[in-house]
């Protein structure tokens, strides 16, 4: 298939890996963060990590939409789902994220009407088919997913669907990156930029990384060769003493992003003063809420939402994994008490989570290494 098969060519991949090996300075340790959970998934699925020299380390970033949702927010969702007459809808992986008293899936098993949808448009269809019920969509995700919620709300408003509302937990990618770059915990040499977020926001929002922090960024696609090539481009920038935003994913990402999507988002959402991120705490202007024009469709205004902050379980180290401070296998409960079947932390829930990706694809290699 065009745009896919040629980026999975094993021979080409080994050739690029060979060029990377030849280009690295012996004795220098390179730390490159892949921001997006989709990249983390591909890296482990295709064994990209195994093709890299030992002194090129990939650090997994905070770009998994499910992983950054704090436990208190899950509890808020469950509280709304338990309201009489409510049909609560959300994406499939969100259903398994543990709150302080279980997940949405467990709340469903206890009788709440919670349904999995593939898009907010599906939730709107459910609302139109059930006019006597209140239908709530639990909106999560970065700028890639936010346009879908925004368009659905525009449609709900235009069609006058009054029994539909959105519990908005959308987040934006730049503020957590700035928080990570300001953190003394982590020294990074460069970033693999989130390709699909950039289809919406374009390349420009990442200019602050080379400008303010002197670190290269390469926006990348999600096939193994995309990721290898992005790493090679980052290393080249470091070698040339250059520092800029480059776009490896030009076949999909326009430099300016999708202006229509940005306009729709600006109409429907506004920034929250603060939003809590799992492991990263409260970050200013990093979350979205519905604008005043869409207040009638805001589930947080329509229902009573507890809004209580809940600390993560003591054993869980998702915060450190999300900040790239520890590797998934360094967490005390990784693969023992915390597995994809029974996750304690969010990073083990979604296929884009670093722990789940490592558990599903990478742990065997690690076990061989240890032996």
């Amino acid at each position, binding site marked *: 298939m065009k745009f896919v098969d040629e980026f999975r060519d094993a021979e080409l991949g080994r050739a690029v890996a060979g060029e990377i090996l030849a280009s690295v300075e012996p004795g220098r340790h390179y730390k490159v963060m892949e921001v997006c959970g989709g990249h983390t998934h591909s890296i482990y699925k295709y064994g990209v990590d195994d093709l890299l020299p030992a002194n090129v380390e990939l650090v997994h970033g905070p770009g998994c939409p499910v992983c950054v949702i704090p436990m208190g927010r899950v509890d808020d969702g469950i509280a709304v789902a338990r309201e009489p007459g409510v049909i609560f809808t959300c994406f499939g992986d969100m259903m398994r994220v543990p709150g302080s008293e279980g997940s949405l899936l467990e709340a469903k098993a206890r009788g709440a009407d919670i349904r999995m949808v593939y898009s*907010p448009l*599906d939730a709107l269809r459910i609302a139109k088919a059930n006019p006597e019920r209140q239908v709530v969509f639990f909106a999560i995700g970065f700028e*890639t997913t936010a346009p879908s919620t925004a368009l659905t709300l525009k449609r709900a408003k235009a069609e006058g669907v009054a029994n539909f509302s959105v519990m908005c937990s959308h987040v934006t990618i730049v503020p957590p990156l700035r928080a990570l770059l300001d953190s003394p915990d982590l020294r990074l040499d460069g970033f693999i930029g989130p390709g699909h977020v950039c289809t919406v926001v374009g390349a420009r929002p990442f200019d602050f990384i080379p400008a303010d922090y002197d670190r290269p960024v390469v926006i990348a696609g999600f096939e193994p060769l995309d990721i290898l090539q992005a790493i090679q481009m980052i290393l080249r920038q470091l070698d040339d003493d250059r520092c800029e935003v480059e776009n490896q994913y*030009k*076949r*999909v990402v326009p430099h300016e992003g999708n202006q229509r*999507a940005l306009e729709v988002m600006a109409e429907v959402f506004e920034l929250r003063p603060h939003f809590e991120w799992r492991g990263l705490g409260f970050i200013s202007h990093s979350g979205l809420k519905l604008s005043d024009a869409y207040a009638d469709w805001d589930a947080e205004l329509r229902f009573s939402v507890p809004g209580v902050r809940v600390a993560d379980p003591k054993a869980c180290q998702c915060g450190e994994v999300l900040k790239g401070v520890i590797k998934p296998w360094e967490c005390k409960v990784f693969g023992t008490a915390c597995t994809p079947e029974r996750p304690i932390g969010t990073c083990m829930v979604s296929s884009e989570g670093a722990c789940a990706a490592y558990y599903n694809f990478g742990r065997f290699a690690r076990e061989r290494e240890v032996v």
Partner: protein
Amino acid sequence: MRVTRIDEERRLALCAARDGATSTVEVELVAPVALGDSLLVHAGVALVHLTHEEVAA
């Protein structure tokens, strides 16, 4: 996904994935679309028109 049917009035299109699975996609953000166009779709919304000149080049 590839466009297989278009509802211009409602800005929706029926699209087929490479495995043949079909779904209704909101195309407002990439309109106009034509039958056979390739779109990058996320959460039911087309975000990129993959057949535009820049990509096809």
